[in-house]
C-alpha cells in the first residue's frame, strides 16, 4: 500500500523573494541563521526579474539516488520522501544531477543537505513561515489512488 504522497508546491507569483523560508529551514535544522544551509533556496535575480524556488520534488525516480556512489540517499517506499544520511562523502554528484537545483552543499561539514519535508516536525517549516502563502504543502495530484498493477502481471 502506497500512502498518497504529499509535496511542497510553490506559487511563483506570490513569492516576494524574502528568503525567510531558507533561513527558517536552516534555523530549524542546524540551529543557526544561515540561508545557505536551508534545504530550500530562493534564487532571485532583480535584473533578470525572476524568483525561482529551488525546492526538492521528491521525484518518483530520483536522479540523486541513482548518482549517489555511497548509497546514502534513499526513497521511502511508504511516504515517498527522499532522504540522505550522514554517510555522505561530499562528492557532489547529487548536486550535479538534480534538475531542480535543490541539493545543497554544507561546505563546512562537506556533506550534501536535502529536504526531508521536515518529517519529524508537524509540517515543513518553510511552509509555516512563508508570509504570502506562496509555499503550500498538499497531496500530490498526480499519484494514482490505487496502483494500476497490484501484483506481478499474469497473462
Amino acid at each position, binding site marked *: 500500500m502506497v500512502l498518497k504522497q504529499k509535496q511542497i508546491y510553490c506559487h511563483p*507569483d506570490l513569492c*516576494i*523573494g*524574502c*528568503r*525567510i523560508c531558507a*533561513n*527558517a529551514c*536552516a*534555523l*530549524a535544522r*542546524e*540551529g*543557526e*541563521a*544561515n*540561508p*545557505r*544551509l536551508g534545504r530550500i533556496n530562493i*534564487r532571485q*535575480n*532583480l*535584473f533578470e*526579474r525572476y524568483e525561482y524556488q529551488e525546492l526538492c520534488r521528491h521525484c518518483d525516480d530520483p536522479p540523486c539516488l541513482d548518482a549517489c556512489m555511497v548509497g546514502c540517499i534513499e526513497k521511502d517506499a511508504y511516504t515517498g520522501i527522499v532522504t540522505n544520511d550522514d554517510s555522505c562523502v561530499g562528492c557532489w554528484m547529487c548536486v550535479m544531477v538534480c534538475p531542480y537545483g535543490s541539493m545543497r552543499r554544507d*561546505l*563546512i561539514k562537506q556533506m550534501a543537505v536535502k529536504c526531508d519535508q521536515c518529517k519529524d516536525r508537524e509540517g515543513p*517549516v518553510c511552509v*509555516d*513561515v512563508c*508570509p*504570502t502563502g506562496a509555499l503550500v504543502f498538499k497531496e500530490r495530484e498526480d499519484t494514482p489512488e490505487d496502483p494500476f498493477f497490484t501484483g506481478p502481471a499474469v497473462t
Partner: protein
Amino acid sequence: MEEKRPLCVNAIVNLTERTVELTETPEEIIRQFVGGRGLNMYYLYKYLKPQADPLSPDNVLILGTGILTGTLSPNSGRHNVTCKSPESGIIGDANIGGFLGPEMRFAGFDRLIILGKADKPVYLYLENGKIEIRDASDYWGLLCSETEAKFKYDLGSDIEVQSIGPAGENLVRFACTRYGVKNAAGRTGTGAVWGSKNLKAVVARGTCGLPIENPQAMIEKYIELRDYLKESKVINVLGRVGTPLLYDVSNYLGAIRTHNSQQTVFFDTLNAEEVHKHVDKMLGCYGCVVHCRHRNTLGGEGPEYTTEVLLGANIGVADTGKMIDLNNIVNDLGLDVSSTGTYIAWAIELFEKGYLTEETSGRILRFGDYNMSRQLIYDIAYRRGLGDTLAEGSRLVEKFGPETADFLIAIKGLPQSDPHDVRYLKGFALGIATSSRGADHLRSRPTLEILDLPPSFTTQIYGEAVDPNPTSYQSKSRVVYFSETIYAVVDCMGICKFICHGFNSPRNLNYDHFRELTRLATGLEFSKEDLHSIGRRVIDQERLINYQEKGITRKDDTLPARYFNDPMPSARAKGSYISHEGFNKMLDEYYELCGWDKDGKLLPGRIDELNRLRDIKEHKREG
C-alpha cells in the same frame, strides 16, 4: 571546540594602508547603543577627526548592521551607512534594506569601519570571516545595475552587492549607494563618500551563518508576529500598492509639494491606482512581511510616494510613465531621489526669479518639462554644465546669494525628503525641523497625527493625551519626542520602520516586541526603559556630533522660510502656515522633554557620559 561568536565583530579597514583589523564591541557598549544606527554613531564619534572635510580621506565610513539583522525577526534586512555628510556637513546616515546587511553578518562581520582612501578604485570582498581589498577598475564607470550584474557574472550569482553609480564616482554631493535595482542608502550623500574613498562596492558571500540563542522559539515568534502584523489594514494596503497610497490622501488635503512648494495640489495621474497599472509584481527585502517594493513594467523598481512627488509633482511631470522613467534613471545613476527632485525644482524657481538665465544654464528651465529634467538628471550625475553646478547641492546658496535659501526646501543643508507639505500638520513640521540629519521624515514623523486619534487612545501610545487637532501646536512636542525615540531604537535593531509602532499604525511592533526578539536572538535582556534610554542616547550622540561639526543649536532647528511666510494656497489645508510663536513654543517644550538646554545643547553631564563611553578600549581579535 569553536569559540562562540561575539555579539558584534567590527572590521576596521584602512584603505590607504590596505590593512584590516578586527575588534569586538564590549558588551558594556552594546548595552548602551545596541547596534545599527546607535553603534554607528558611537563609532563615528570615536573615529571622526573633528572638522574633517567630508570628501577627504579623514572622513569615516561605517556600514553597520542592527542587532536583529539577518535573524528570523520580521523585516530584519536593514543596515545603516554612516559618515559625515558631504551634502550638509553634519552627520550623514542612511538606512538601507535588501540583503547585504544579513549577508555581511552571515559572512562574519557586523560592522565595517572604513578609513582612508584607496589610490585606485577598489571593492571589498567579504567571505568566511575574511576581507579582501580587491581591484575594481573593471567596474568603475558602470551604472549601479551594470555593476551588480557584472559582479554576479564574475563572482557567482550567490553574492550580495552594494555599490555606487556614476553619481557617487563623480562626487555628486547627494549621491547614494545602492543594493539591487532600487534599495538605497539614499540620503545625505553617502555615495559621494564612497566615491571619495575610491570604493566602488562592498561584496559579501555569507557562508558562516549567525548563531541564534533560541532557534525554535525564534521560529514560533516569527510566525506569531507575522500573523499579528498581517492583520493590520495598512500593512495589507502597503503590500498591495506600496507607499503611493499616500499620494491621494495628501492631495485631497492639499499638501503635496508641487512646483517647489509654490502650489500644493497636483494631478490625479499619480494616484496609486494609476501607478499600479505599471506594476508587474510586489517584492520584499530580507524577511519581509510587508512587500512594498514594486517591480515596474518599465524595467526598474519603484516608484515610492517620495519619488512620485519629488520627480513628479515637484518638477511638474504629471505623466505616470514619464515619472516612473525618471525614477528608474535616478536609481540607476545612483542619485538620491529626494535631493535630486528638490534641487531641480529649486533650479527652476531660480530660473523663474532670474538667478539663472538661459546663458548661464544652457537651457530654458520650466516646470513640467520632462525632457529637460531627464537631461538635467544625467548632467548632474556626470557633472556637465548646469548639472555640475547643481551637483554641489545646498552649498550653492553661498553662490546664488543667501536669499535663495528662502525657497530651497531644506533644513540644516539637507532637502526635505517628505513629499508632504508640513505647513498643515504642525507635528510633522516640528519633526523635520529637529531631525538630526536635516529635513527628513524617517527620523521622527508622527504619521498618526493625520488620523485625528481620540485622547484616550493617544494616552495609550504616547503616555499622555495629545491634542487630536493636527493643526494645533499643543502637545505636539510629546508626539515627536516619542516617535524619534522609538525610530532610533528600531534603526538600532535593523528592522524596517513599516512594522514599527507609531510609524503608520498604532498596533505594530513596540518596545516589548523588540525586547523579546533581542532576547530570543542574542540572549541579551533589555527592559522597556533600557530601550527608551538607548533611543535617547543615540539621539543625544547625534546632537553632540552635529554640535561639534557645525555648531548645530536652536538657530538650526527651523523650517524653510516659505513654510513660515506663505500660507498654503489650496484645498482643505488652504491658509495654513507655521507661526513663529507656535513653533518656538513647540521647540521649547521639545527641548525640555529631551533634557537639553534652552538653546538646544546637551547638558555637560551627558557630554561627559558620552566621552567616557567613547574612551572605552576595545578587544582586538585575531583575524
